[in-house]
């Protein structure tokens, strides 16, 4: 039969020799292997006390960005929702009313913006698709919840705090 | 009453009660357990006679090996009161008559038997060193013959087990 891959290894099917049938040498070999592992470095990280450093390209929970004046950058163009392979993002657009210029940067903004963290695969395509630099993936995990509802993150959960308000506090 | 007598009475009472339990209990597993208890009390009697080797061998061979096999078979057959077939009446009468006859014979035989009083003081014959010397000096031929008997029984079992091949 022709091999399906180039990495095929032939299996040795010769009958066992007498030394192999004694079984004791192979037991000793196995015992030595496990004994060596006693002195190896432990792979476990003591989680709450010590945390493993994230890799520089780690993608975690999303945030919605504001500009330096504290206005929401998102213009509800929907490119992130289109880019999302898991279809985790839903949004509703609304028009900016006069007098709201200090809240929203563009004339159109997202009245509702939800990401379902159970669907999200944290691929970061939304981040790449966004023309306004409005959505970013941070370096935190989505925490656990008792209900599915808790995994649907709305605008209040995603928006970063207003930099101006922070200064006043 | 000395301590020995008290122990003897208690052991005898337990062994009689458990021996009755063997034949009176409906559940075969309980029967087997009663039998094991009987063996233990008899081993206790052996210890009282200063025959420790006999006591331990009694427990190893009977309670530890033979009764395990008994229990094994009974568990696999899963006998209980529901599956027990209805016994015929004449079988019950036959059993009662033959059992009664045996009782009469035993009573008749034991009526005239005199009980030789045991000499006081512990005998040393039950200790393992003395027993071994006796077995291998005075009784070496019967001992070896009985081992041949066991061997033939073993060969028979192997032959039965190998019959299919």
């Amino acid at each position, binding site marked *: 039969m022709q091999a399906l891959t180039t990495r095929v290894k032939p299996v040795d099917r010769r009958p066992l020799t007498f030394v192999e049938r004694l079984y004791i040498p192979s037991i000793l070999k196995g015992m030595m292997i496990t004994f060596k592992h006693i002195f190896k470095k432990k792979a*476990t990280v003591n989680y709450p006390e010590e945390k493993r450093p994230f890799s520089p390209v780690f993608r975690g929970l999303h945030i919605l960005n504001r500009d330096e004046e504290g206005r929401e950058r998102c213009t509800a163009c929907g490119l992130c929702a289109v880019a999302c392979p898991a279809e985790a993002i839903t949004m509703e657009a609304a028009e900016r009313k006069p007098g709201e210029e200090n809240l929203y940067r563009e004339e159109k903004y997202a009245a509702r913006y939800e990401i379902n963290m159970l669907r999200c695969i944290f691929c970061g395509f939304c981040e790449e698709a966004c023309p306004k630099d409005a959505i970013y993936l941070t370096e935190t995990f989505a925490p656990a919840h008792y209900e599915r509802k808790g995994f649907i993150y709305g605008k209040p959960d995603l928006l970063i705090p207003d930099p101006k308000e922070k200064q006043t506090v | 009453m000395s301590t020995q007598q008290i122990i003897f009475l208690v052991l005898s009472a337990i062994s009689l009660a458990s021996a009755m339990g063997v034949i009176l209990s409906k559940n075969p597993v309980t029967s087997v*357990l009663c039998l094991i208890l009987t063996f233990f009390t008899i081993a206790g009697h052996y210890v009282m006679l200063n025959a420790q080797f006999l006591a331990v*061998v009694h427990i190893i061979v009977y*309670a*530890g090996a033979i009764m*395990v096999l008994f229990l094994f078979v009974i568990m696999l057959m899963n006998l209980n009161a529901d599956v027990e077939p209805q016994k015929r009446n004449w079988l019950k009468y036959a059993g009662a008559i033959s059992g009664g006859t045996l009782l009469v014979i035993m009573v008749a035989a034991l009526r005239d038997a005199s009980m030789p009083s045991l000499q006081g003081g512990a005998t040393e014959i039950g200790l393992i060193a003395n027993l071994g010397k006796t077995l291998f000096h005075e009784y070496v031929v019967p001992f070896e013959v009985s081992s041949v008997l066991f061997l033939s029984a073993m060969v028979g079992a192997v032959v039965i087990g190998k019959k299919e091949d």
Partner: protein
Amino acid sequence: MVIDWVFIVEKLALISGVLALSLGVAMYSTWGERKVAAIIQDRRGPNRAGFMGLLQPLADGGKLFFKEEIIPTNSHRFLFILGPSVAMLVACMTSAVIPWGDVLTIAGRQIPLQVADINIGILYIFGVVSLGVYGIMLGGWASNNKFSLLASVRAASQIISYELALGLSLIALLMFTGSLSLKDIVEQQRHGLWNIVYQPLGFIIFLVCAFAECNRTPFDLPEAENELNGGYHLEYSSMKLGFYLFAEYINMFISSALMASLYFGGYSFPGMDSLGLAPNLVTILGFVALFIKILLFLFFFMWVRWTIPRFRYDQLMRLGWNIMIPLALVNMLITGAIILARQ
């Protein structure tokens, strides 16, 4: 009749001491097992409850006590409860004849650190061990569960099969020592070489059979999780399950003590009589030496468990009947021949 009350108190104290020791060691064996498993698998093991997780056995015990007690409706109620009790009782009984140390002299009284020095010590152990299977069989049958029954049948046939080889390997040792008392055997090794030098093959057979008798990997077929959903204690919960698990660890402890006493000199250690220490100090050091040997054996039990996979059932039986028993017989013949030649 004069009753020696001091003697009774002395023995009672010794018995409770030995029992407490067995239970304590069994408790910490569970911790040790998890630690050994962890370090062999490059993990850390329990380290949350107390320093290095040393309070973990207490937490586990407490958990077992407070778990719901479930007795299946269609089980044989009395036997269901009797099973774990018998397992525990038998496991604790063996420790009576093991010499834990030499003689302590307190206020002019000679106190041997052995509960009972009977002249058939090894046979006693053998008898008690052969009863150990009842706990498993009763529990497995009384649960009224096919898997438990299968496991208990396996356990019974396995233990009976390996008992034979165990006994035969011991006979070779007894031919050599000429005594059935464990104390005598240890004393002989104190003044001569350890028995492992004279009986290496016998020791290996004894070791393998001890693994099988304790239902330890690679012979843990009665509790093969992936075939039997857990084994003979499948229907057990709460402390009754705890008793079964505990009995297994006590059996391990006792067989370690037995192997140390029979083949590795028991409480004797090199230089015991030549150092010129006080007799009581030597006794205590001897106990420590025995304990260290036992702990090494316990570690060995665990090390093997996390190395060697389980045997198949036919392989187990073939190993027991076709290899171990003939080997033990050969060992007996060789020992007999050597004893004859030296006379």
